[in-house]
Structure formats: structure tokens, C-alpha cells
């Protein structure tokens, strides 16, 4: 067995997993940065994206529209939820309440999905243009996974540019640092919050659509993935966008190489890493201390 070939193949696997994880972690961390809440419904929104994606594909006969429609639909649902329910809790200054309301939403969403689409897993076929493999270092690697890595990277770059270079991004960063000041300066902070929440949900949904061709849209997708999301956000730092990128890549590699070498330990290693980082830096690696 060729060592270089092995490393390359598994690293690519890790990056493809990291790409999906990034879509979840990015949204989670942005929402935390703005609202100081951990959105428990994020996993269910990811799952909703996959299912809406499936319906879009079934309706239009093509994969590509779902990449736009699913995030749009789920983003709107997320934004509505924030406006109707979460916004009322801000006055309460009770962090526990958000955790619980988003947890309740997670349950309701999961059930609604089951009732709407049924219990059978639904498959989204890979579009023809993305079928097949490429040989990298003599190892086969599916083109679709390269596409995933590409989409993840593109999303990371776009979000980064948005935060650094645009006025809206500037507002987002400002609100996450000092909401009251921004409000005093005349900006509608509530609108910023709704927007960021919707954006986070949309990203999770996009992650869901993209992962469906790999593993079908199935119930239980959400609860598996939400924990990974938390781990990443905590490792990378709550509220830190760069942290969500680093965290996703780190967790992707730990999962792939961990399960290769230490089958039994793979699961535990992620949580050990999370604990180790939290012990040293309670806000996560690059995070703002809570």
C-alpha cells in the first residue's frame, strides 16, 4: 500500500466531510455571535433542507434548482421563526429560554418532516455532470465529493468576503460585538438578527441538500449532525467565523483518521478534543468568552 496514496485519499475524504460540516458550523457560529444562543434546531433545519431539496428535484427534474430553492425556503422559515418566537425572548435575558425554544422547534420540525414526507429515506441522484471518479495519486475519488469540497470552499470565501467587505457584514460584526451601541446609532438591530438567523438556517439547508446524494434524505439526519455542529463550534470558538472553518476541518480529519486507526475511539476522540480545548480556553480556540 502506497503511503502517499493513502494519505491523499483519506485527506480528501476528510475534506469532503469537513465541507458538509462547515455548512452547519458556519450558521451555528454566526447565530451565536449575534444572539448568544445555540440554535438546537440547526440539525432539523439541515434535514429540512435535504427534504425540500428532494421535493425540488422531484418537481423540476433537475438537481441544480434545489441548491437555490432549498436554502431560500428554509431560510425564510428560519427567519419567520426568529421573528415570531425568538424575538420575544430577548427582553427576558434568560439564556435558558432560547436553548429550550430552539430545542422544542427541533422536535416539531423533525416530526413535521416525518408527517409530510413519510418515514422512508428519499434519494436524490447525483446529476450526470458530477458522476464518475478522478484518479488522484492513483486512488479513485468521486467527482461529486470534489464538488462538495468546492462548494464548501466557495461558501467559506463568500461568507468571509461578506463579513469583511460589505456594509451588511460590517453591521453583523458590529451587532455581535455591541448590539446596544449599534442600536443607538440607528440601525434596526432586530432586522439584523432576523437576517443572520435566516442566513444561518439557509446555510444549514444547503448542507442538507448537498449531503442527500451521499446518504439519502432520512429521518434522524438532524440529531446525528447537530452534535457534530456543537463540537465544531465549541472547538473553533463560539462566534468565530474563522474558528468554524478550522473546527470543521479538524473534526473532519479526526473523524476520518480516527475511525481508520482507532475504530472504537473515533467517537470519543472528538469529545476529548472538545473537552481539552474547553478546559484550556472556555470560549473555544478563537471564541469570545461567554
Amino acid at each position: 500500500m502506497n503511503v502517499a496514496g493513502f494519505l491523499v485519499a483519506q485527506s480528501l475524504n476528510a475534506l469532503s466531510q469537513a465541507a458538509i460540516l462547515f455548512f452547519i458550523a458556519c450558521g451555528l457560529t454566526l447565530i451565536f455571535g449575534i444572539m448568544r444562543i445555540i440554535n438546537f434546531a440547526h440539525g432539523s433545519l439541515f434535514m429540512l433542507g435535504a427534504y425540500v431539496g428532494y421535493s425540488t428535484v422531484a418537481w423540476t427534474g433537475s438537481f441544480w434548482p434545489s441548491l437555490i430553492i432549498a436554502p431560500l425556503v428554509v431560510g425564510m422559515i428560519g427567519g419567520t421563526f426568529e421573528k415570531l418566537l425568538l424575538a420575544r425572548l430577548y427582553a427576558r435575558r434568560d439564556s435558558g429560554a432560547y436553548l429550550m425554544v430552539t430545542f422544542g422547534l427541533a422536535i416539531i420540525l423533525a416530526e413535521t418532516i416525518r408527517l409530510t414526507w413519510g418515514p422512508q429515506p428519499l434519494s436524490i441522484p447525483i446529476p450526470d455532470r458530477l458522476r464518475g471518479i478522478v484518479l488522484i495519486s492513483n486512488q479513485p475519488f468521486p467527482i461529486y465529493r470534489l464538488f462538495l469540497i468546492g462548494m464548501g470552499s466557495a461558501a467559506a470565501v463568500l461568507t468571509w468576503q461578506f463579513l469583511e467587505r460589505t456594509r451588511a457584514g460590517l453591521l453583523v460584526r458590529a451587532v455581535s460585538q455591541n448590539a446596544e451601541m449599534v442600536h443607538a446609532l440607528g440601525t434596526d438591530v432586530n432586522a439584523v438578527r432576523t437576517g443572520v438567523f435566516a442566513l444561518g438556517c439557509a446555510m444549514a439547508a444547503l448542507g442538507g441538500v448537498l449531503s442527500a446524494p451521499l446518504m439519502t434524505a432520512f429521518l434522524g439526519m438532524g440529531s446525528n449532525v447537530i452534535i457534530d455542529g456543537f463540537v465544531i463550534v465549541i472547538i473553533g470558538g463560539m462566534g468565530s467565523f474563522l474558528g468554524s472553518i478550522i473546527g470543521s476541518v479538524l473534526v473532519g480529519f479526526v473523524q476520518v483518521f480516527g475511525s481508520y486507526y482507532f475504530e472504537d475511539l473515533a467517537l470519543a476522540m472528538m469529545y476529548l478534543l472538545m473537552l481539552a480545548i474547553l478546559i484550556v480556553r472556555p470560549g473555544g480556540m478563537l471564541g469570545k468568552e461567554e
Partner: protein
Amino acid sequence: MKESTQTRLSRRSLFRAASGAAAMLASPALLRVAAAATPIKVGIPTVITGGYAVLGSHVMRTCKLVDKMMGGKGVLGRPIEFLYRDTQGNPADCVRKSQELVERDDCRLITGVVVSSEARAIMPKLAEWKAFFISHGCGDGLLTTKEFLVPNFFRANTSAPMGARTLALYLKDAPEQNFIALGSDYAWGRSSVGAFEEQIKAVGKKLVDKVFTPVGNKDYSTYITKLIQSGAQGCYLALQGDEARSFFLQATQYELPKRLRLFTEIVAQADIRTFGKDAIGMVGSSRYAFTYDVPENKKFTEAFLAEYKEIPDWTDGEMYQALHILFAAIEKADSVEADKLVAAMENLEVSSVKGPILMRQCDHQGENQGFVVKVAASSKYPEPIPEIVKIYPREMITPDCLSTSYKTTG
């Protein structure tokens, strides 16, 4: 005066609220008691939601078909009543739901349990519940060994060691020399891979490595890469439900079948349907092959196709067989009491959809033939079907008593 009215009102409303709450909590139970008391109740704690939900849905549809086929006549002049419960594949929930069936619904016949860990969880309680459990599809070899076997448990289906043995015997004449095995990391998967390891060595071939994937795992990229780089020529798979589907989808994306031949311990029609043309050529041992030409199977398959317009899957066939054997034992015992059923089922022989089945006395394992199938395109059906390529006699396939091993190599 107003005060005392208020007091009376408040006490009355409190009482009303309390009795209302009590009634709400008790009502389903009352409704159930009011129903007929004569039917024979068969409890089906199965997977209705969860990763193995497809298997549970098959269990239920076959039960409903059997119900229909019996036309209300039932056994011993009593109609059969199936009680379905959702365990989500969770052993703890299976214990809970089974206990409910026994204590609340007075139902002491249990079948339709999908996951081997669930079986392991309820078997120790059967004596206390005075309940009888016949497995239709639990494959863990250990269930019929000294460690886990209990008197009130019987297994009608092909077990994982039997499936592994069937495939290993077949592979003895195959061109591949080196194999690798991949199984789901729980009771059944470990049993299946372990048995295959033993059997493939017994026929003189090599097992290069064995890999276990976490239950519920979705991304198989790491493992697929491991398989590709192992240098093996064939891969033995012990995966079911969502896991089997995800694995195969991704394996096809990596073009794994071009590099090694995949063999599976279980061939599921539901999976074949999902993969379509990609499934053609897949070889596996099949717990039930709908094309097997015996009268009982013809009868079953025709009724099934007429009712559901779908090819019966392996769970359908095995569930039918288990019910067939259960009802035969009830007739023979003229009772539904556990002790009498045990005595009646031991040494019971039945002409089933899989051929002649003997329920062994020594370890309550049903002696089944072994079928090897190959998925091929079909002109008769809209999807590929598993065609029987070899059948092994039951004496060759069923392990030694109370064991998962075989004294003879075959």
C-alpha cells in the same frame, strides 16, 4: 354567602379537573378492555420509525396479508389479532413495549422483532412474563447458544452464521482468494463477520481484514478507501437498512464494485430497487428467495403480488414462515400457553415457503436450507431480481447444536 359558593365551586371544579385528568390517563385502557376478548393476540414490537424502518414496514405488511389470507378464521377457531408497537430499533424501548404488551394487553406471543440487540434484551424476561418469542429475522448466532438461549425462545429464520456458511461454501469455488469483511458494529454484524471469518478459512481462503462500522454511520468514505487499499479481491458485507443503502450508493460513487466483488449476507429487494441497474451482478446469500419453486411459496408470492404489487422481500418471506410455524405449533398444542407451545414446537417440521423446516429441540433453531442468489435483469418484472444459483441442504448449513461453529467443512 358568596364565599361559600366560591368554596363549593372551587372544590367542584378541582374535582372535575382531577377526574378529567384521571379519565384522560385511563381512557385508552378502558377502550381496549371493551373490545372482544376471544382473539389470539400476537404482539409485534417492531421498527416503525428509525434506520431499519423498512424492515419493520415489511413485517407489518406481511402480518396484514396473513390476516387477510386467513379470512378471519384464525387458529383453533379464534381470529388472530396483531398488536403493532414501535420500538425504533431501540433495545430499551423494545423491553418497554413488550412489557406493555404482556401486562397491559395480556398478549404473550411475541414476534416481528427486527434487531438482534432487541431480542437479547427481552429474552431474559420471557420466563417472568410467561411469554413466547419466535424470531423471524434476528440473525445474531449467539441467540441460540448457551449464553443467551432461554426455553421460551425459538428462531425460525436463517441466522448470520448460516448465511455466512452458505456464502463461504459457494466462494470455495470462486476465483477470489483474498477477502475483506465489513459489518455493522452490533450483535448481528459482529456475529455475521465472525462466522464468515471462520468459514472462509475453513474452505481454504484468506480473510485479509475485518472492519466494523458504527451503527447508524452514514459516511462510508473512510471505509471504502480502506477496502480499496486492502488488496482484497472480494468483500463480505453485513449491513442492513439505511446503512446498506448508504454504503452501496457511496461504494458505487467510488466505483468500488469495479475493483472488488461485493458479496452480502442479506439480499434485500428494497435495496435492489434503489440501486436499479447498479445492483446487477451482486451475489449474496439470501434468507428468502421469492423465486423458490415450492407450493407454499407459490401461494404466498401470488397473494403478495396481488395485494401489494411488489415483490416480497426477505423479511416478508421470513415473517410469513415464522407465523406459519407459530400457528402450526398453536394448533398442535391446542393452546397459546408458553410451556405447551415450547413442547409443541420442538421437533416440529413444516413445509414452508423456504422448503422443509425442522425446529430443532436441542437449541430451538430452525433448520433452513441455504440459498445463494445473483441479481439479474428480468423481463418479467420492472426491476432486477435475485435469481437462485445454488441451494445447500439444511444439514450442511445449520451449525452444531448450541453453537455458531461447524464440525464439518462440507
